[in-house]
């Protein structure tokens, strides 16, 4: 499998704190990849490393299976397009910004108008080509920044929280643009989002980040606390695990592994909590329940189960799961 990036022993320190710690990570090429995680999970730091706009404190990054140096060579730089969370457009028009990117990438003057047009077409921004950059709305600005990043046709496009601070209409527009970009042959799109559902819907692959570390655990039912004697204390609940990781600070429970019942079950499962049903939501042919047991749990059940249990909002219900369903990290 061809990889777009291979990260080995990457660490990023800020103010003497390790904010990113990735022993090994391979990001496949020609895929749409979502980096998922809460605010402060390290998504932007990781994207900065992938964009080579900041140098990791330790470790090496292979780009398309080739060694890299910091700053990146102009040939390798041309393979990456990067749009930060709060993109900055330089003074001038949208076209000026795109043409500047082409100029900085060393593209011949005669090819620039055609490439500018192609980029504007891809993000549906032709009508604003001559508009001053400082008069664009939030959504238009993000699309203009994407046009600038894709104008020189990089193999990899990195987007940091592309949907943040946008209204629903602009989010939908941008989702369609990302899908269109990801479908282009030979292109890799890597974007970060704190919206798990959005990430799962758009991406072929997802990478979960928690406290600067990648994890295969689902990010629903993610709790922080301390592990002692197989019991993880979140400060509000004690959850049984099978782990002996002494320095573990996080656990995650797969929502599909949680059993919902209207009364306490007598079973081999070690974790039973009663809580109040606070949300019932339809999600991709399943039903997601949110139950407040002191900590907020998410469980996924079938629509048939919802009917047979006859659940309504505000009901007190029981949730149970095995200690082996708890991922500790």
């Amino acid at each position, binding site marked *: 499998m061809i990889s777009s990036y291979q990260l080995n022993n990457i660490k990023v320190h800020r103010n003497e704190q390790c904010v990113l710690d990735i022993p090994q990570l391979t990001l496949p090429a020609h895929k749409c990849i979502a980096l998922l995680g809460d605010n402060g999970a390290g998504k932007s730091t990781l994207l900065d490393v992938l*964009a080579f*706009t900041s140098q990791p404190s330790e470790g090496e990054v292979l780009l398309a299976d080739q060694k890299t140096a910091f*700053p990146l060579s*102009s040939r390798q*730089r*041309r393979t*990456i397009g*990067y749009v*930060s969370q*709060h*993109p*900055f457009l*330089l*003074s001038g028009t949208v076209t000026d910004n795109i043409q*500047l*990117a082409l*100029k*900085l*990438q*060393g593209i011949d003057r005669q090819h620039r108008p055609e490439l500018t047009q192609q980029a504007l077409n891809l993000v549906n921004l032709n009508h604003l080509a001559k508009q001053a950059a*400082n008069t664009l709305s939030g959504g238009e600005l993000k699309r203009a920044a994407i046009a*600038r*990043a894709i104008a*020189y046709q990089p193999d990899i496009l990195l987007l940091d929280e592309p949907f943040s601070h946008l209204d629903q209409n602009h989010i939908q527009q941008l989702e369609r643009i990302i899908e269109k970009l990801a479908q282009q042959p030979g292109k890799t799109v890597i974007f970060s989002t704190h919206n798990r559902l959005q990430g799962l819907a758009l991406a072929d692959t997802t990478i979960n980040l928690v406290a600067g570390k990648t994890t295969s655990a689902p990010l629903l039912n993610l709790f922080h606390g301390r592990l002692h004697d197989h019991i993880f204390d979140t400060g509000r609940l004690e959850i049984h695990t099978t782990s002996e990781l002494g320095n573990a600070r996080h656990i995650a429970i797969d929502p599909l592994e949680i059993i919902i019942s209207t009364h306490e079950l007598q079973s081999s499962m070690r974790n039973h909590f009663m809580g109040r049903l606070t949300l019932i939501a339809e999600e991709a042919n399943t039903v997601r329940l949110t139950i407040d047991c002191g900590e907020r749990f998410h469980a996924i059940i079938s629509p048939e189960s919802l009917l047979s249990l006859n659940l309504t909002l505000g009901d007190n219900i029981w949730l149970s799961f095995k200690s082996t369903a708890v991922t500790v990290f």
Partner: protein
Amino acid sequence: MTYFIDSLLAAMALVTHFDSDIYQIVATSVSISLIAALIAASLAIPAGITMAQHQFSGKQFIQHLLNTLMAMPTVVIGLLLYGLFSRLGPLGNLGLLYTPTAMVIAEAILIFPIMMNLTITAVTSADPRLIPTLLSLGANPYSLFIQIVKQTRFAILAAIITGFGRAIGEVGAAMMLGGNIEGFTRTMTTAIALETSKGDFELGLALGILLLLIAFIINFLLSWLQRSPS
């Protein structure tokens, strides 16, 4: 009071009748200050942008040094350069003393810290996303420099104008290194000092009016640039 009003009217007449002696002095002043400003700018702007971009040990010390040099009395610069350029000094064989070149050197040294400090402020007060954006778009060190100058051009122009204003109004170093030689190194400020001491108050006043006019134009340009979007 009559003396002052009569002198003022006579000075106005000298200015409005385009007295050749006066405009010769003005031309010397402007050309020396302009060349000094251009030389200082060509060094201070790259130095200021480089310093603003990078973090290194000793940066704080350089910043303090620049602040100190900004407040350095002009006669001290004149004195040091006089020592270097006088016949017995290490650069005496260059024969620069009492030449416009010596005055340009002195004024360039005088305004270099002002321009560099203002350039540092211009770059550090620009949008913090500017440099990362340019780097992510593939800017090499040269194109990065050009684009930073372009994006902060109004603030950098203001730095150049401020430096020029300081140079044209300077008297101490100009007097010590230029020697106030008529038609050669006589500038507006040195002429005002000399003519007033000689009792030619009208000529001094006429030059003062022109100096004020230049100061007004400089300030007008500065405030216009500050209003412009950077």
